[in-house]
């Protein structure tokens, strides 16, 4: 059997390899998505004091360290059995929204815009930020500006942009400086204008990709995400909801502590990335997706006016349940608008500058679960400790993991649509990588338990002979 290898997939976070196997006629027979690094966080944290976990687990990733800190701190709050002060919860949501803005800006502009604005078949030598600078300097400037805004808000709140130590078990470790609040409020309109401009740009561009929309993981799956009591979109706190591909309610208001009743984790033989599945349905049929596309499918509404208007238009164009993985990009932009609007609401609330921001307590429960919606999807931290507070067990179910089965199946769909083993084109292989990028996978996050993401792609013939190989450095 012939085989093509893309090794490794570029413009994603971490290291991955894709193998495409061809039949004797040179057509795509099968594909595999391999994640090739071991991180081992779940094991090496055993024995550490639980209150170090937010900072240890934030080192899983340099793009969304805040997400891990938040999920981890929530698991620690649960071990301490405390309700954190109201201001602390709002400040945590505020930094989380800033994290969403910067991470979504990074995904859309820095990683995917070369494919989306320059084109899938654009010269790979300049299909990158440099090419964007040449062809779409305004869009690039917007992307850099939006990411900078998110990062600066994080720095203002937490003193550091990457791996801050501000979110702690029991709350946060310092209140919001009123000057930082004023400064952020004055900068918010410009950030909102960037997202609205980009939404307008993308709404006019998305129709140029009919083949990608049709073949980028365009299949029915379940969807999972956090919602509030009223079914609205929640990023920091809420209960899990699973909906079917037809929009039917599969499970609603699942408390974070009950996640294991619904989510099982399978281990795949050729990847260090585990494959979570919907337990009542079983493996591998219990395939579900998380992240921006899933959250907008799961939620009844966003809950902020601008994002709700955009959501309505999005649903009018693509339906109540949007199946194509290509629309992760669109959904990501709507979420960026939601995050900015939530920041505005939080900052307008006078209690945001409250000074009671931390609850102190020891170990009051031997187990704790923390669930948030990270930019890439539902993030679960589940810890067990001994009575002295030493970690005895940890389970991290990371966003990219939930999407593993869907990415794998999506690669097969897109490869079958675009790759012809008899005449391999770079643009075709780029589409395979672009499918992976649409999910904005964070492979360094997701391989916490066992172990790689720049991407590699192998094309193998029916006899197993290596026909072509693409490796990105």
């Amino acid at each position, binding site marked *: 059997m012939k085989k093509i290898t893309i090794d490794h997939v570029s413009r994603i976070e971490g290291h991955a390899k894709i193998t495409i196997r061809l039949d004797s006629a040179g057509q795509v027979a099968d594909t595999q998505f391999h994640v090739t690094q071991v991180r081992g966080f779940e094991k090496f944290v055993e024995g550490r*004091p639980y*209150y170090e976990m937010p*900072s240890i687990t934030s080192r899983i990733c340099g793009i969304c360290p805040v997400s891990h800190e938040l999920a981890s701190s929530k698991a620690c709050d649960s071990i301490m059995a405390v309700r954190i002060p109201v201001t602390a919860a709002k400040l945590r949501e505020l930094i989380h929204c800033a994290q969403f803005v910067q991470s979504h800006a990074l995904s859309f502009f820095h990683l995917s815009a070369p494919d989306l604005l320059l084109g899938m078949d654009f010269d790979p030598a300049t299909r990158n930020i440099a090419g964007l600078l040449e062809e779409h300097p305004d869009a690039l400037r917007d992307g850099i500006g939006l990411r900078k805004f998110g990062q600066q808000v994080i720095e203002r709140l937490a003193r550091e942009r990457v791996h801050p*130590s501000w979110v*702690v078990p029991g709350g946060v470790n310092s209140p919001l400086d009123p000057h930082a609040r004023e400064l952020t409020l004055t900068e918010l309109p410009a950030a909102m204008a960037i997202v609205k401009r980009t939404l307008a740009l993308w709404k006019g561009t998305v129709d140029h990709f009919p083949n990608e929309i049709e073949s980028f993981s365009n299949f029915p799956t379940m969807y999972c995400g956090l919602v509030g009591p009223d079914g609205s979109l929640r990023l920091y706190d809420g209960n899990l909801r699973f909906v079917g591909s037809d929009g039917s309610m599969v499970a609603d208001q699942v408390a974070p502590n009950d996640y294991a009743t619904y989510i099982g984790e399978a281990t795949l033989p050729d990847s260090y990335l585990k494959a979570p599945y919907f337990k009542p349905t079983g493996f591998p049929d219990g395939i579900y997706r998380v992240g921006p596309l899933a959250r907008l499918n799961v939620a009844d509404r966003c809950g902020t006016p601008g994002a709700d208007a955009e959501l309505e238009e999005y649903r009018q164009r693509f339906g109540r349940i949007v199946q194509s993985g290509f629309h992760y990009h669109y959904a990501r932009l709507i979420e960026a608008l939601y995050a900015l609007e939530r920041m505005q609401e939080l900052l307008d609330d006078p209690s945001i500058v409250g000074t009671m921001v931390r609850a102190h307590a*020891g170990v009051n429960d031997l187990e704790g679960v923390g669930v948030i919606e990270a930019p890439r999807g539902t993030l679960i931290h589940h810890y067990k400790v001994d009575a002295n*507070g030493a970690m005895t067990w940890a389970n991290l179910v990371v966003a990219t993991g939930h999407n593993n089965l869907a990415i794998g199946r999506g690669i097969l769909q897109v490869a079958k649509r675009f790759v012809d083993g008899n005449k391999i084109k770079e643009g075709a292989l780029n589409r395979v990588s672009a499918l992976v990028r649409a999910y904005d996978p964070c492979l360094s996050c997701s391989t916490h338990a066992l172990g790689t993401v720049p991407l590699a792609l192998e094309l193998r013939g029916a006899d197993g002979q290596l026909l072509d190989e693409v490796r990105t450095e």
Partner: protein
Amino acid sequence: MTEKVKVRIDGEVIAATAGQTILEVARANGKYIPALCYMEGLSAVGACRLCMVQVAGVARLLPACTTPVQEGLAIDTTSSQLQSYRKIALELLLAERNHVCAVCVSSGHCELQTLAQEHGVTYVRYPYNYPRLTVDTTHPRYVLDHNRCILCSRCVRTCAEIEGAHVWDMAGRGIDTRLVSELKRPWGEATSCTSCGKCVQACPTGAMAEKGWAVEEMTKQRTVVSRLTSMREGQ
């Protein structure tokens, strides 16, 4: 009457009292010699080897914290050879155990980290030892992380000399040396421990910390030991 002596430190003639150590005289006269195991108010043990100085006429380097001054000594505290040796000593401390500043409760408030920064330790030239070490979380208020312990014995001396409880000791030899509480009982079961916490305040790194403080949050009251000593001497 105490005997007065004159010494020359880095070329400067300084009056001192016989019996004082080089380190005491230098610090009293505003001359900085780095040290980790030395703490004002405790006996000196010369364990960390960071305060090594060159004395004219002596072929080997001498630890400033345990070498008494004598009339006419000429001492060099800043030579490039000393700087190089101090850097080596710091790198060896960092290589010996698992000092991961990024996730340490004492990051930003750690004497080892500060000295490494002052001495330009931007990398460690020696292979890391990566020992498998335990964390003693058994005490209700404090935690001992052997990964961050540099065996300076400040906790041992603080407990024995200031608190008078002598909970702490060193067990084993060489690279296998470990800090132990009450002949290797878990700290939480050490009946002689009064939970006063002075050992924690004396610890230069994040090896001993109060429970519940997250990364970068463990600040210590370094002067508590010297203050207690000076108050007792004043009685």
